[in-house]
């Protein structure tokens, strides 16, 4: 709706398509996240339930008071991608609230600089939990309580009153499992355990362990680094009060692999990334933040950019819909299709009559486009199958010549024809050295892959693989037979030394000549060439396909510019080489120099680069005046010299204060009328 108001309905269509695809992708990622976290959450819930029931039992049994002092604690190792933690913990809270207890509180370190704030936050959040549960009848009570001095005593008193009140009424909703407990536990999630003040943590743990019998607390530590920090933060006296169990969340790399697998390596979503874009996104992920959130943000941005900048992105939707849309393409858009480089290449390959038809008749073009799109769809279907198949073969080779992860393989295949690369050649070499059981396992996996897909195009392949497998199996049996027969025949003969030597030589020769001709080796060779043929047929790089521009987003540059910008460099370029931005011939200069007509700030900057840590303002201003006067002379300015000097001085002041705003210099008291440089060389 905020797109440029050109042909409105087309743009609207594009925007709607974007919305649709993005919504689908988003819900898919959310679903994935849930799925991936499911295991972790299940085990956590189980832990909470058991620990709580233990607590409950113990609380009746007063004899084991020592054990009762131990607060059940789950240490949740979440990894360094701090930005993703929030989402995980939020869904964890939801799960816990649905399954275990309504009293789930999560605290962040920055809210709790001391014990008072800690308790305050805890209490207010607990109250909120309760208000949710019990409609809002007690709001007045809550307001009063806000001013009460918070202590663990008041907290446990509150807890008693709440549990006793709610029990007879049973007003809780949608908690079937938890209602079996008379008093649900209070779960406290510390989102970023590392950044809490040690003292606060220690105090809180000691105090709450005293109150554990009346206030059933369970802690969950969110840990970004490693579980060792618990012991570093808490002395033994404190950590002995905790009954810690460790939980490990899924590593973010695996998460990324799954996301890529489900979003990009599939025909479910028509939108695809080109090699460079994918490379940038994964690099940002791997070298900057390990954040899935950011990766998805990048994906969203590329999707948006694609739909914003590519007019033909209307065709980036599912196949039937795209076919329908082709029928309604305007003449203008047909022209757009004709202008696509990939389409032009395609046209050039056609016969001359067809060329004419394609270039003149819109109707014919539309029909052709439909079939091309269909081809593209089929191409992708096969592409991903074969890609996965190849990945099966390459992922376990020594040294991983084509990468360990499928995304690396995918990148290589996107970039160029993979079979031309050295790595691929070495992969084939290595495949030729594989042992039978390894090869068979790989084939087995591939077979499963091909079978699971419903595609008819590659149905043949599945059959071929099956045949190979059968041949290997039969090879097994025959070989065994051969072996036994040979050993039997040889073993029975009695010979003298001469004959023995002779027969040994014969055997040796036999072996060396027949080395190539072992049945297994022949078969292995066949398998390798089969894989090779598959790759050559189906893993063509996408830019060989006509109309690939409609589906592939390739403007890696914009993406990097918007996601991973470099403000300092931009600043430097602007100051150092104004011609780059202001295309005026007067500003063109040999490298390293700037002309004296450049903007004032550039000149001042240039001059200041010559100084070390401190800059004398007088010198600077004189140097500036020299340069500027030289420039003025050429302009033949006719102002009196005194006034001109004044003006130049004013310009210098402006340039200097601008540099100060930009953070290159700052005033200093070290020496009168000096400023300090703040970039390298200055402090």
């Amino acid at each position, binding site marked *: 709706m905020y797109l440029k108001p050109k042909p409105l309905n087309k743009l609207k269509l594009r925007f709607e398509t974007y919305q649709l695809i993005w919504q689908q992708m988003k819900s898919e990622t959310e679903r994935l996240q849930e799925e991936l976290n499911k295991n972790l959450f299940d085990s956590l819930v189980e832990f909470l339930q058991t620990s709580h029931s233990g607590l409950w039992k113990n609380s009746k049994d007063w004899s084991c008071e020592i054990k009762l002092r131990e607060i059940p604690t789950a240490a949740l190792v979440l990894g360094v991608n701090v930005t993703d933690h929030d989402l995980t913990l939020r869904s964890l809270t939801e799960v816990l609230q649905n399954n275990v207890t309504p009293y789930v509180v999560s605290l962040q370190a920055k809210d709790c600089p001391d014990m008072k704030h800690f308790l305050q936050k805890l209490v207010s959040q607990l109250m909120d939990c309760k208000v949710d549960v019990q409609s809002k009848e007690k709001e007045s009570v809550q307001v009063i309580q806000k001013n009460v001095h918070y202590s663990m005593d008041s907290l446990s008193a509150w807890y008693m009153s709440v549990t006793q009140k709610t029990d007879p009424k049973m007003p809780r909703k949608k908690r079937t499992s938890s209602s079996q407990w008379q008093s649900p536990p209070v779960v406290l999630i510390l989102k970023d355990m590392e950044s809490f003040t040690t003292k606060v943590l220690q105090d809180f743990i000691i105090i709450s362990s005293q109150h554990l019998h009346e206030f059933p607390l369970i802690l969950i530590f969110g840990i970004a680094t490693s579980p060792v920090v618990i012991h570093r933060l808490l002395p033994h006296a404190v950590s002995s009060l905790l009954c810690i169990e460790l939980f490990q969340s899924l590593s973010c790399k695996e998460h990324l692999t799954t996301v890529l697998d489900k979003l990009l390596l599939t025909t479910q979503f028509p939108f695809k990334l080109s090699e460079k874009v994918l490379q940038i996104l994964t690099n940002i992920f791997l070298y900057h933040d390990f954040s899935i959130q950011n990766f998805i943000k990048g994906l969203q941005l590329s999707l948006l950019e694609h739909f914003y900048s590519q007019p033909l992105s209307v065709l980036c939707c599912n196949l039937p819909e795209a076919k329908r849309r082709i029928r309604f393409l305007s003449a203008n858009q047909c022209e757009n299709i004709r202008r696509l480089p990939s389409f032009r290449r395609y046209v050039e390959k056609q016969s001359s009559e067809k060329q004419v038809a394609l270039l003149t008749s819109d109707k014919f073009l539309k029909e052709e486009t439909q079939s091309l799109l269909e081809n593209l769809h089929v191409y992708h279907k096969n592409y991903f199958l074969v890609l996965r198949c190849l990945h099966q073969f390459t992922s376990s080779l020594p040294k991983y010549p084509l990468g360990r992860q499928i995304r690396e393989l995918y990148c290589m295949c996107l970039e160029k024809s993979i079979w031309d690369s050295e790595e691929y050649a070495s992969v084939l070499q290595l495949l030729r050295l594989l042992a039978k059981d390894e090869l068979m396992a790989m084939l087995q996996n591939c077979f499963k892959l091909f079978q699971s897909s419903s595609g008819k195009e590659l149905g043949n392949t599945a059959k071929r693989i099956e045949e190979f497998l059968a041949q290997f199996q039969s090879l097994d049996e025959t070989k065994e037979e051969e072996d036994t027969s040979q050993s039997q025949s040889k073993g029975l003969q009695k010979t003298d030394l001469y004959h023995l030597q002779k027969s040994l030589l014969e055997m040796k020769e036999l072996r060396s000549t027949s080395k190539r001709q072992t049945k297994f080796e022949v078969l292995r060779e066949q398998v390798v060439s089969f894989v090779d043929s598959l790759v050559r047929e189906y893993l063509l790089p996408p830019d060989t396909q006509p109309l690939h521009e409609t589906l592939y987003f390739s403007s890696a540059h914009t993406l990097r510019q918007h996601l991973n910008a470099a403000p300092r460099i931009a600043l430097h370029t602007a100051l150092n080489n104004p011609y780059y931005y202001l295309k005026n011939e007067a500003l063109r200069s040999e490298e390293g120099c700037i002309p004296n007509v450049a903007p004032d700030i550039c000149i001042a900057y240039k001059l200041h680069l*010559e100084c*070390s840590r401190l800059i004398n303002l007088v010198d600077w201003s004189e140097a500036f005046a020299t340069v500027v006067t030289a420039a003025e002379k050429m302009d033949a300015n006719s102002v009196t010299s005194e006034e001109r000097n004044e003006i130049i001085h004013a310009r210098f002041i402006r340039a200097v204060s601008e540099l100060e705003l*930009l953070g290159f210099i700052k005033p200093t008291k070290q020496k009168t009328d000096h400023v300090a440089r703040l970039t390298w060389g200055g402090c």
Partner: protein
Amino acid sequence: MTSTLELKADKMLKVQFVGDDDVLNHILDREGGPKIKKERAQLLVNTQKIIKKPENELEEDDQEVLKDHNYVEVLGQDVQESLKNGSATDGGNKVYPFQNRKHPEKMAKLASELAKTPRKSVSLNMKNDPKITIDIPQCSKGKILPQLFKESFQELLQIINNDKSEFLSTAPRGLRKRLIVPRSHSDSESEYSASNSEDDEGVAQEYEEDTNEDILSQKIQAQNREVSAPVFRETPSKKMKREKTSHLVEKYFEAHSSSKVLTSDRTLQKLKRAKLDQQTLHNLLSKVSPSFSAELKQLNQQHEQLFHKWMLQLHLGFNIVLYGLGSKRDLLERFRTTMLQDCIHIVINGFFPGISVKSVLNSVTEVLDHVGTFRSVLDQLEWITNKFKEDSSLELFLLIHNLDSQMLRGDKSQQIIGQLSSLRNIYLIASIDHLNAPLMWDHAKQSLYNWLWYETTTYSHYTEETSYENSLLVKQSGSLPLSSLIHVLRSLTPNARGIFRLLIKYQLDNQDNPSYTGLCFQDFYQQCREAFLVNSDLTLRAQLTEFRDHKLIRTKKGTDGVEYLLIPVDNGILTDFLENEEEEL
């Protein structure tokens, strides 16, 4: 000859100047493997020299050439793409290289050169400039390392001059590479010959090298033997890398070792043109005719084309941050007037010295028609969050000029603004100017902000932004303290005013005395008594407490334990004030 050449070549490898380039490459190499390297290469296509520095930069120059060459080769077709953005031109490595200790005269020299430069070539001027011949030995004082680089480079040059082909056949691989590239780069090989007869007008840079070479060559010849003594054979590349890092470290300490800074002692006072006040500055600047207005306009138009895109992206949950040289205030203002006429929007001038997060939040709550106050900033934020969650039709555009200003750059402020911007219906578009602005945000904050970065270099002057700052050379006009002085004193009793006037007069009488520390309490009491302003020690003290509360005076304990009173206001203002008072009387 051959063997000595080799030896020299090895030496060459050993004492090598290390550009930040190399170090960065080196680091990246370790981290990212070939992929990353390629990416960086893309960035580096247009490396340009910062500035000509005759000594020891010569060599870097050559390396640069080598790099340019390689990068272009690696990625031929990407050059075009990267040209779109300034941030792509330089790899960042050259942005702020280590400084060598520089001679104070350097700036003046550069200025004179720049001034002389008609537009293009420095070459002929340079050659005739006697200054340079003097300057180079001067610079070499106390600079052992750069000297070494320079020398080894000179050696290399000499070697090329003497016997190019022979050298090429024997030099180790690395060196050979370095030799070949400059040759292919320069149009004429003759520039490396000692007797430079051809006058190539266009290539100013290379002329410089020549001139320096000429001057230095005799000197270097003499020093060659000395230098070669401590150098022994060491070729492996691993060694080289270690060398590189160690050199970098040395350079750092070199830059920071001297507590003394060599600058001239001139002060602005000697120069009659002292501080200007804001008004005259403004008047003077208005007389300057703007240059390159056509280009600037074009630049602005390019940015304006993005407005629709910004709107779209803001609505899709991204926030936009603008960076680049030049004030982005006008640009944002135009964005506001063209796109946001029908929307609720708030403009926040971050550069205003009185701004705080509190005031940002206040203006938001004001827009939302909230009456009453909040106990804390967090409460206020919570209220806003709830308000926006309840009413999904509510939309608010937040324009912040200079999000990185002094007042807003604090961790807490950024956290709160970040939380605000992460709300679904608050759209934030902000500008940053400070060099280190991105350091404000850690990963957590960045994910809150959900930035999309846009480079908008405008070259506009930071007129508004700098007008508030206590700028270096701008005299405070003092209108603010004067009016506050008058206001405070009006509310006092006549006696109190008299007391204060006494103090002012005393201070003005002593304004030429550099060792004046203030009026001693006892003397002051005496004077006040004589003027019938107070009748006891206690009343005076009570008065002084009042002054102190209004920050009109400051007391200081002297060395003898006696209190001294001082008015911490500029003398000029005091004079104005006295005149003002007398007029009223």
